[in-house]
């Protein structure tokens, strides 16, 4: 079963994308985008995993132990915090769109010059 985490990541990506396509509510779109983003975290941490490896904290284990790859963990941990602020930016856009157009249905949004 060496393929399971990647299969789950692909599934989450496609399901999240489906949620974005069929949504009638812009807030739902943003939350499904969060699911799509988290599928990439799963891929990255899964790629770095080493069978029998330990967490890369060498405070109490000798350095020659097998450790999992720390580089991908750096990418994912900064990514999680940054994507939260990007989600905030998208939700600010949704709030302003609601003020302007009166609805948050993506089909009701028109060009600003209307």
């Amino acid at each position, binding site marked *: 079963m060496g393929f399971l985490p990647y299969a789950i990541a692909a599934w989450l990506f496609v399901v999240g994308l489906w949620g974005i396509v069929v949504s009638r509510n812009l807030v739902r779109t943003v939350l499904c985008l969060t699911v799509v983003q988290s599928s990439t975290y799963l891929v990255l941490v899964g790629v770095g995993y080493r069978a029998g490896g330990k967490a890369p904290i060498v405070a109490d284990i000798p350095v020659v132990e097998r450790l999992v790859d720390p580089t991908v963990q750096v990418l994912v941990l900064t990514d999680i915090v940054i994507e939260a602020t990007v989600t905030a930016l998208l939700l600010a856009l949704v*709030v302003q769109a609601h003020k302007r157009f009166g609805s948050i249905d993506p*089909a009701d949004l028109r060009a600003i010059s209307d």
Partner: protein
Amino acid sequence: MTRRARLMLFAFAGPGLAAVLVIGFAGLPSFGDYHGVYGHVVTGIELAERHATDIVTALNFDIRAFDTLGEEIILFASVTGVALLLRPLREEEEDEDSEDGGQEAPHVFGGASDALRTISAPLAAFLVALGAYVVVHGTITPGGGFQGGVVLAAGPLAVFVGGRYLASRRLAPDWAVEAMDAAGAAGYVLMGIGGLVFASIFLKNFLPLGSPGHLLSGGFMPLNSIAVGLEVTGAFLLVWTEFLDQALVMREKGGS
């Protein structure tokens, strides 16, 4: 685009995307079978070279500090975008009667139970202490600026949850939040310039390394961690107060 058009496009593109993903992932080595070289090198040399026991934080704030600078700038830019989008517009004003805190004022959460109101103030103090601990001890245990910054920002939020939004605004006023955000971003760049001045390489570790396992180990890594922690705290508090201001305090001019 109407919903129908979107669905038809997805019916066409979705299975193609799924097939490409499956074919791509099938080419990867099996889960747990690690082929990379960089990971082996870094875990072998890090403790001897940088004296930090948390390898992930050492990568974040020292060995790959330049990537963290890029991430910080992304954070700063998106928070500036939020503040710009949610600024008070011409046709908005602050709700006058929400300042006096009458019984019906929306910013006082009337449904807060006694347990919540009692525990929120000590919880805020505890969260600030825990956040500071996580930020400063990033080089020794799992933690660092990014994680600890969010915990620190949750302190004033605990006061809001207890039912007093304006009190939480006094705890974290606008000028302090913006100053923290800017100081964090600028502090990180100043650390980089310090590396340029004292060690002739931008973001090179120029402070004495100390002994691993102690608080002041790792050279300038704790300082970087504090700078990032300040920035993340300021960023999250700014975003939360912007949204909560919009939801609880602002209304359109001329309304009832």
